[in-house]
């Protein structure tokens, strides 16, 4: 294990940004999001979750993947070059790292999405949560607020310094290149990591039991909760767009005269046109079916397809829903137990 003094972080970022594009949480007009580092960046490591998850970097809201030219009867298609993958994500919270591994299941399964695969070559430096928020519930899904197993490098906040542990070969290589900036922590500091991890886990105010939720959720399709929960839903896309695991997308064309391009962009199962067919039929005709789809997908369908929950408990939807539709209520309905620590 190593450590870096917080005072030296700007030096570190400057160095890293020279090696590869460096994305970290930054504040602009009061909104904290991942953005590329540049001189004078207003980095905000201490805030827990960014508004948009780092999903917006590995799976951007829209990206063009082909250009076309149409002249009379002739059509020409040109692929867009795959995106650059050698960038660094710094300060990703453990729930968001887990969110990326959920996306992996979708985009890296056959047929592999090569654009995603390329972006996924990035290096992820995760920052442990010392004090999770009241609306966080990552522990419900067996995740740990103080540790992100899928990260390349793990950081813990030790007040004046960040403790630094590489978890993968990629992380190790990067760590080696930073000998000038990293220091060796004292044994006490090294030991403090365990303490930070444990405190974070207990600070997460609510203790969750999810035994049987997957199974119970399977039978929830006709549960009464759907008849009431959806009524206040505004049908906006906040919950899905801010979700680190939501991956639904649409494909659209943009054209100008003979030239044009085809792009893929985020879409939301909360929108009424999401499943609307050209014939006018819609298998999810009201907001009830759409709200049910979102929760069932996370708690039942996704586990059935991929063996893990489609929720990582980051709490963004809980915090940002304008009418407080709360997935933890659904989990409780599905038999998840909850008790205050």
């Amino acid at each position: 294990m190593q450590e870096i003094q917080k005072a030296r972080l700007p030096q570190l970022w400057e160095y890293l940004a020279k090696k590869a594009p460096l994305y970290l949480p930054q504040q602009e007009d009061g909104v904290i999001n991942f953005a590329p580092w540049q001189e004078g960046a207003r980095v905000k490591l201490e805030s827990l979750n960014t508004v948009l998850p780092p999903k917006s970097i590995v799976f951007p809201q829209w990206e063009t993947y082909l250009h076309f030219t149409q002249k009379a009867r002739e059509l020409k298609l040109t692929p867009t070059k795959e995106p650059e993958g050698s960038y660094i994500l710094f300060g990703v919270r453990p729930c968001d790292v887990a969110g990326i591994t959920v996306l992996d299941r979708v985009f890296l399964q056959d047929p592999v999405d090569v654009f995603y695969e390329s972006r996924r070559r990035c290096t992820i430096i995760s920052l442990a949560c010392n004090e999770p928020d009241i609306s966080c519930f990552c522990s419900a899904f067996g995740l740990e607020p103080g540790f992100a197993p899928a990260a390349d490098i793990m950081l813990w906040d030790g007040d004046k310094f960040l403790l630094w542990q590489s978890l993968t070969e990629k992380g190790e290589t990067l760590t080696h290149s930073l000998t000038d900036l990293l220091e060796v922590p004292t044994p006490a500091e090294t030991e403090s990591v365990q303490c930070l991890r444990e405190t974070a886990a207990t600070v997460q105010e609510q203790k969750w039991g999810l035994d049987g939720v997957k199974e119970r959720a399977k039978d929830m399709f006709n549960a009464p909760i759907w008849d009431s929960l959806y009524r206040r839903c505004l049908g906006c896309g906040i919950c899905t767009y801010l979700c680190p695991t939501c991956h639904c997308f649409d494909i659209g064309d943009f054209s100008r005269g003979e030239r044009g391009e085809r792009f893929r962009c985020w879409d939301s199962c909360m929108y009424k046109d999401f499943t609307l067919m050209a014939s006018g039929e819609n298998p999810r005709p009201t907001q009830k079916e759409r709200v049910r789809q979102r929760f069932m997908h996370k708690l039942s369908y996704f586990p059935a397809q991929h063996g893990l929950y489609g929720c990582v408990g980051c709490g963004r939807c809980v915090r940002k829903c304008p009418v407080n539709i709360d997935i933890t209520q659904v989990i409780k309905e599905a038999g998840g137990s909850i008790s205050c620590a």
Partner: protein
Amino acid sequence: MLKHPLFPQVAVVERISRETADIKTFSVAALKGGVPFNFMPGQCAMLSVPAVGEALFSITSAPAQADFLEFSIKKTGAVTDCLHGIEEGCQIAIRGPYGNGFPVAQLKGRDLLFIGGGIGLAPLRSLINYCLVHRGDYGNIHIVYGARSAADLMQRKELYENWPASPATSVYLTVDTGQEGWDGHVGFVPQYVEELGFSPQNSIALTCGPPIMIKYVLAGLERLGFQPEQIHTTLEMRMKCGVGKCGRCNIGGKYVCRNGPVFNFAELKKLPAEY
């Protein structure tokens, strides 16, 4: 450069023939000639007219039957409107094949009952012609097909000439509403199937049509004694990617584009009723 899974190939619409007032059949070949890709009956392809968009269609020709793919397309939305407007020789984009297709191995040695309605004949036709090519592998073949009116029946040459001429193959036609010059059966497909009273013995039923027809056909077949495992149907959903990623065509934990579009009724019964 790496190939994006959603990247299509350019193909040529070699021939367009009008089936009915709102259905045309398009023959689509690769730019260099030949089929753009190999496929099995019941599989689909994503066709697109750049600047307008993509839409998924079932392939209606049979594998190895021709050096092009055929699509019977009904004019219903932006993409289909545009396709109906193009001329022979135009280039479009295509990607596929998508979906599971019909379980052809399971069908060997069985009597086959095809039940189609309207444009729903399109995927069935692929399998029918496939079976007729390998005629010896299958038992009796019954084809029940209906449309709103006589003018809405597609693939007439095959319905009236090719298929009835094949050994042990019978075609039963019906129209929703009778009219002058139609001396065939009048009535909805599901009722006609029950009237005809097919035996479930060693049979497999395969159906495709509008959702409401499928619903009643399934019920009717059960009344005739067909087990859910003996009935296969194809489902339709709004689709974008075709590869189980874009997240909109799921019924419960199954994606219609990837795990379907062909489902047997036993599987379907286990899924939420959201189709």
